[in-house]
Each structure stands twice: as structure tokens, then as C-alpha cells.
């Protein structure tokens, strides 16, 4: 692989709580290549949002304690001081949040909010900044952008708002765009359209994309590579086709088995029994062992390593799938 744009090493996030430390992300490591789309999937609470917020130093510390490294342009993002990280935020790495209804300031016009990152990072002012903002609205497919730039967020529909948020995200042509459940709050048709548009923009601007979602359908449509997160740990990582063809980890298998298959009716979905572990009281061995159908003594006693039995395909399990499944 070519030089990665972003290299995360042993990212560990612990929240100090009254009942003791809660480790919500545990030694997470991954590389993001230029122009690549990396999907981070997991159940709610698996640490996928927290891990991306930490990259931008957007977690309140305390109570969060962030350890590890995230190397971007030769520097560790996690160690940058406030003025330095602010130059990265929005400019080099931008973020799109889940809820388009609340991620825009209700009392400021769309234009005002869109111009903000342009003024902050591109040094454009007044007319030039406004012109750029209109171009961006055009780019994300808002009709008659020049007329709508002075509207307030409540005058836009949810899908339109998310387009505005995306316009804000790409306004400074970042190297990395982090989309945190960016389409989850939208209906399926709008979702498909927005995903298409983001992919299109990604190609045009040459961005790398980190796509955080729990929706495996979306993953199949957009990702190049997938990281499966469970209880703050990477359980499996592989190229998207590889993963859907040959899932090595029992957790990933369980996750995929719990999806409805079109045309296959009259069968209950195979939900994974039980609940994810409490981060305050993590299991001693494999984090998935309490719910794993294949768990043996070893799994409870000893934590498996994140092995790479096939090049480019990592799985955190003591066993190879050949041993587990017929």
C-alpha cells in the first residue's frame, strides 16, 4: 500500500467514571490510504464515534483519557496543542455528524455557517467567501443556491440540511472526511442519493473517507475496507469484498447473520444472544467470548491476538474459520 494519509496506532480511550475507569476503545490501530474509504462498523457503544472524535481532540478531557498515536502529515494529532489542532479541524480533517436537524445552528443563516470554515481556513473574506459558499451549495446539489444561502436551517428539509453539513465538511477540501453516521437519520432514498454524492465528491477532491456506521448495507455500497469494532476492539479488518466473502471472525459472522436477506421470508433473524460487555467490567479473555457460539475454555482465559492469517485480513480470534465452521 502507498503511504497512508492517517495512521492510527494503539488508540486507547478510557473514561474516568465514579465506578472506575471504563475503557471504551482498546488498542485500535488502522491505516487510511489516500482516496480510500474505510468503514468502521459496530453496534452502538462499540466505540466507533468516540474513536473518531478523539482523532480531532473533540472529546472532553477529562473525563476521557486518550492514549496512543494518530500520525497525520508526520505529526501526532493527539499531541497537538489547541491552536495547532484547530488548524487541522475543518481544514485538513473534517467531520459530518449524524443528525442534520441539530448539527446546524438554528439562529444563524446557512450562509453564515458555511462561510465560517472558509473564513477560518482559506483566508477568504466577504464577497469571495460568499461566492465560495454558493459554489459549495451548488456542488452538493442544492437548487438555486444563491437564493437559498440566506435561509435559516428550519427552512430546509432533513436531506437538504445534511447536504449543507456536507458542504461545510468539504468547504476547505480536506484530506480526510469523517462521516459519523452521516446518513443514518435520513430516509433510504435520500440516503442513497447522499452517498452517491459523497462518493462523487470524494473522487473529485481526492479525499480519504472514514465512514462510521452500524448499517452494513451502506458499508457494502461505499467502503473499500472495513474495520469491525466490538467493545472498543478491532475484531476483524479486511477489504470490503473479502470481508463479505470470507468473514473470519465469529462476531462478524453473527453481525452479518443478523441482517435480513431479501426474499428469504418466514425465518427469524439470527440475533446474537446477550449484550455487549460492560466497559467497567470487561471479560478477561476475548471480549466476545460471553456471546460467542464457539467459545471454549481458552477464549475465556486468554485474550486472542489480532492475527493476520491472510495478508490484508486481520481477525481477533484464537481460531481460523476452517477450525470453526464446516
Amino acid at each position, binding site marked *: 500500500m502507498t503511504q497512508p494519509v492517517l495512521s492510527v496506532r494503539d488508540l486507547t480511550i478510557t473514561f474516568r467514571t465514579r465506578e472506575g475507569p471504563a475503557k471504551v476503545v482498546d488498542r485500535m490501530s488502522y491505516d487510511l490510504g489516500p482516496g480510500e474509504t474505510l468503514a468502521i462498523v459496530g453496534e452502538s457503544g462499540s466505540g466507533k464515534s468516540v474513536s473518531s472524535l478523539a482523532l480531532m481532540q473533540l472529546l472532553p478531557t477529562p473525563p476521557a483519557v486518550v492514549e496512543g498515536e494518530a500520525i497525520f502529515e508526520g505529526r501526532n494529532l493527539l499531541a497537538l496543542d489547541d491552536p495547532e489542532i484547530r488548524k487541522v479541524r475543518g481544514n485538513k480533517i473534517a467531520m459530518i455528524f449524524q443528525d442534520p436537524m441539530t448539527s446546524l445552528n*438554528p*439562529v444563524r443563516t446557512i450562509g453564515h455557517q458555511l462561510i465560517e470554515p472558509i473564513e477560518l481556513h482559506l483566508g477568504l473574506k466577504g464577497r469571495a467567501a460568499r461566492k465560495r459558499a454558493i459554489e459549495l451549495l451548488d456542488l452538493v446539489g442544492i437548487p438555486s443556491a444563491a437564493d437559498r444561502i440566506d435561509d435559516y436551517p428550519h427552512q430546509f428539509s432533513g436531506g437538504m440540511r445534511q447536504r449543507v453539513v456536507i458542504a*461545510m465538511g468539504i468547504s476547505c477540501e480536506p484530506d480526510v472526511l469523517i462521516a459519523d453516521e452521516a446518513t443514518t437519520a435520513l430516509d433510504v432514498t435520500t440516503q442513497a442519493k447522499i452517498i452517491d454524492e459523497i462518493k462523487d465528491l470524494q473522487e473529485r477532491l481526492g479525499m480519504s473517507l472514514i465512514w462510521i456506521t452500524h448499517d452494513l448495507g451502506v458499508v457494502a455500497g461505499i467502503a473499500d475496507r472495513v474495520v469491525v469494532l466490538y467493545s472498543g476492539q478491532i475484531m476483524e479488518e479486511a477489504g470490503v469484498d473479502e470481508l463479505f466473502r470470507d468473514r473470519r471472525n465469529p462476531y462478524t459472522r453473527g453481525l452479518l447473520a443478523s441482517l435480513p436477506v431479501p426474499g428469504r421470508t418466514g425465518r427469524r433473524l439470527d440475533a446474537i444472544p446477550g449484550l455487549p460487555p460492560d466497559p467497567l467490567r470487561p471479560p478477561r479473555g476475548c471480549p466476545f467470548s460471553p456471546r460467542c457460539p464457539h467459545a471454549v475454555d481458552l477464549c475465556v482465559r486468554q485474550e486472542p491476538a489480532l492475527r493476520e492469517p491472510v495478508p490484508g485480513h486481520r481477525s481477533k480470534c484464537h481460531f481460523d474459520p476452517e477450525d470453526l465452521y464446516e
Partner: protein
Amino acid sequence: MTDLVQESEPIAPVAHRSRFRTTAETVLRNRLAVAGLAILALLVVVALAAPAIAPYTINEVDVANRLQGPSAQHWFGTDELGRDVFSRVIIASRVSLQVGFISVGIALGVGVPIGLFAGYYGGRIDSVLMRLMDILFSIPAIVLAIAILAALGPDIVNAMIAIGVVYTPIFARITRGSVLTLRDAVFVRAARSIGASDGRIIGNHILPNVIAPIIVQTSLSLAFAILAEAALSFLGLGVQPPNPAWGRMLSEGRGFFQQAPWMAIFPGLAIFVTVFAFNAFGDGLRDALDPQQRSVIESRGKA
């Protein structure tokens, strides 16, 4: 049938109306608020033009015509030294409004930043600032103002400072309360994620969202400040003689209430009308700025 007609009606495009205009329109639909606003406008004009309007100067002593009832020469009568009560009431409006605006300005200027910082940063800053505000708030307003004036000396400027200090905690609390609900809002996090500094987030994203309750509190506080000034002047701690103040005139008129009730009635009426006007306008403003209230008013207007 009617259902069908309604369904086929095209959805009206959302008009391009600014928040200021919608608010103004809602306020203007409230008759009481409009009355309050009209009285306030009149008061401001009278106060500004007082020296020109007043038929006499404030200290024109005319002992021969002392304690005269209202007449064509003296609309509000004369006091125990034969001074024209109307002229004095008019001139005193200047000081009342001035005290109101300046002292509320002080409370606003100190209280709002305290509330913003305490609410935004939270933690220890919040605890220290808000406990300080609680201490101020726990002392009855007029007692605190008297204590401050006792320390600084009776003087109109000191009275403004005292009243300003007394109302600071109210603004700090209102601001902090609103900021707390916004601090973790997604759009604040989004602003941070595009690289906005704390100062920019507070000024550009938080303040515009908390301004509505602050505006309402300002208009209501003006009424209280004018009342407080009247009370302090009544006690001889505000405006010093021979300058007129409504509270002072009320206090002086007290001794002559049997012979010359107009000496107390007219300044009292002036206080009442001013306070009423600020309250009526403030209430209207609150209704207009509260979106839930607003839709009630709007639907009432259409019905």
C-alpha cells in the same frame, strides 16, 4: 370534498423573514405591548426634550404660590417652596431613565459574560462564579443596594453601580441556564470540528441562541431598576437635593400629603406608568420570542 381541496393546495413557500421581523410583527400584534412601547417612546422623547418642555426650571422658588393645587399655570401644582411639580417630574424622568439604562447596562455587561463563561466552561470556573452570584443573590436587593451605597456614599453614580450589582446575578443565572442546554448541542460540536475557537463559538453560536431570554430580562429589569432608584432616592441615598427624582419627590411629598396630595401623587404616577410600560413591553417581547408561545399567538391572530 373540502379535504380534497385542501390537499391539492400547493404548499406555500416559506417566506424569507428574518427572526427580527417575525418577532417585531408578533409584538406589534399584542396591544398591551404596543401600548407599553408607545409610552416608552413618549417617555424617552419627554426625557430628552425635558428642559425645553418644562415651563419652569426645577429650582424656581416661588414661596407666595407654595402648595398650590393643579391649575393652568402649574399643571401638577406646586410644592412647599412653590416649585412647579410638573417641571420637576419631567426633569426627573431623565435621571430615572438614565439610572435604569446605565444600571441595567452594568448588570448586563457583567452578568452575561459571567453566565457565558460559567455555562460554557463548567467545572470549577462555573462553581466559583455561580457561588459568588448566589451570595449576591441571597441578600435582599434593596438591602444590598443600601449596603453598597453606605460603603460608597450616597450619590447618583453610586446608586447606578449598586443597582447594577444587585441585578448582575439575575443576568448571570439566566445566561448560564441557557448556555448549559447548548454547550453539548451538536452544532456547537460541529463548530468546534471546523476549527472554531472557544471565543468564536461563544460569540457566534452560543450568544445568538441565548439572546432572547436576555432581551426579555433586560426590559423587565429596567422597570425594577427604576423602582429601585425611586426607593433609594426615597431613602435619601440616590439623587441628592436640590436635583429632583421621583422617589425623592415622593418622600418630600409625604409630609404634605394632607394639604398637597399632588406633590406625591404625580411622581408616584410617573413611576407607575414607567414601570407598567416596561413590564407590558417586556411581557409582549417574551411571548414573541418564546416559539411555543408565539405559535399560540399567531394562530390566535389568524382565527
